[in-house]
């Protein structure tokens, strides 16, 4: 199948964009719409990059840490929620901590080309203790103490959508997360999707992510499993629990086996 504008790509081609990147973002939230097939591909093929940016870091983060794909993780939550922690996070990782607000500000600063955006210092008392890189300042108008949150530009963002067209317009269906903001802050964005459609607006639906922000489209049914992608499927708790019980050294093999299952 040939894309009308060349955006359609294979999983391997799209995953390769992250090789050696300074910062890669994965979209989705909790167990919803995580680009897990992409993460498994990196884990199975030994690809490496420096920093993973997530809002809530779940199984996708855990497996990338366990497989040694990433050097460090930036986000405001780590763990598999009620299911505890997987082998990656149990073993430890380097974390750049954010609060919900500081991460939104950093992403927005990248989008807007601002050198920083201010966070009221009272919101960042704990953050300032673990992030000595954050500079303090006083607001020139109110004299309020603030933390200057620097931009966090993204080299490549990966988001998993329910539907997409070949131009890169995508519909999320379930949790919207911050995927549009990630794409805005990214130099390149890859959309993996459950359904590749000709007319994304069929049925009066509007796209959540539009084509000027998207570099590649990968048709990847089941690409968020064992997480969920509504309306197609929900998170597979038994499989997630099986993952959480793995030894760290077994994660790359688990990823390979899952990918083979996806390909069949």
């Amino acid at each position, binding site marked *: 199948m040939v894309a009308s504008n060349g955006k359609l790509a294979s999983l391997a081609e799209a995953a390769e964009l992250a090789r050696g990147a300074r910062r890669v973002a994965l979209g989705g939230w*909790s167990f919803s719409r995580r680009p897990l097939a992409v993460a498994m591909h990196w884990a199975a093929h030994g690809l490496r990059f420096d920093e993973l940016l997530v809002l809530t870091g779940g199984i996708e983060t855990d497996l990338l840490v366990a497989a040694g794909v990433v050097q460090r993780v930036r986000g405001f*939550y*780590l763990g598999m929620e009620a299911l505890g922690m997987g082998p990656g996070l149990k073993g430890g990782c380097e*974390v750049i901590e954010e609060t919900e607000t500081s991460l*939104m500000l950093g992403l927005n600063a990248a989008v807007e080309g601002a050198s920083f955006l201010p966070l009221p210092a009272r919101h960042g008392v704990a953050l300032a203790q*673990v992030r000595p890189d954050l500079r303090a300042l006083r607001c020139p108008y109110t004299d309020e103490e603030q933390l200057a949150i620097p931009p966090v530009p993204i080299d490549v963002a990966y988001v998993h959508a329910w539907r997409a067209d070949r131009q890169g317009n995508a519909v999320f269906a379930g*949790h919207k997360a911050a995927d*549009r903001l990630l794409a805005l802050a990214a130099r390149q964005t890859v959309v993996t999707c459950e359904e590749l459609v000709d007319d994304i607006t069929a049925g009066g639906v509007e796209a959540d992510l539009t084509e000027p922000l998207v570099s590649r489209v990968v048709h990847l049914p089941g690409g968020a499993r064992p997480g969920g992608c509504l309306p197609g499927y929900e998170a597979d708790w038994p499989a997630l629990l099986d993952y959480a019980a793995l030894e760290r050294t077994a994660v790359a093999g688990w990823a390979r086996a899952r990918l083979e299952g996806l390909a069949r």
Partner: protein
Amino acid sequence: MNDADTRSTAAAPADVAEMMVCTMSDWLLRAEVIQLGLASALNQVAALLAQARTNGQGPALEDPAALTLTRAQRPAFLSRSERAAQIGALRRYEAPEWIGQMMPRLAGRVRQFVRPLQIDAQGRINSLRVADKQGRLRRFAGLAGLAELAEIAQPFLVYLPQQDQRCFVDTVDFVVADPLAAHAPGVGHVVMVTDLAVFEFTTVGARALSRHPGVTHELLRERTPAAVAVGGVPVTPGPDAALLHTLRTQIDPHRVRDIEFATGAARREALLRLHARETAHALA
């Protein structure tokens, strides 16, 4: 439904989980918006119970499982929470919209029960621990909105399914949130519901407001920091039969409320059992 379920839907007295969620729901009734929190089983059940107690005319629910705002009355779900969160949703928010634009508008109007790793006699919160590369446990300073919630939630609500000397301490190891300091002097208010009692924290000090049925003064004293007053407190009123019936049959028929009490190998079994029950439940 197994034997245990059959017993729980009859007129059995409230167990610890039921005592906690019914008491927690008391503190949620007057919120405008309740934030559910990710995978927070007791908070979700208590919130849905509060909504049922007000016939849907009380608080709206913000559900992070799909980042929705809803007034729909429904049973609690954990493994299927994203789909459940979309039932009757008034809106699905993008995370930046909720975090950056909505939450700051909710000061004094939003409530959410959070489960800390530790809380101290000053009402300060320490939360999730993550190992670093050297295997040392470190704190997560910004965990999932606590910094923001400390400033806007009034009262700031906390729960502990198992109150002991490891989690209710004299001084927390690391301050993730300081809800009393986040407000003007005399304004901040923290309320905590545990498996033993209800506590409040103000700038004047901390004290027990009530202890649950069957909890002795001696047990409460033993598991509570010395700086917290626990003497002469009344017994927490238990839920009446109608409220228990609503909880057991309408709000939490799958027993989501039990998950936070399960540990070790039993927890995995409890999670799988809950998943099976929820999967068997038709969900729009």
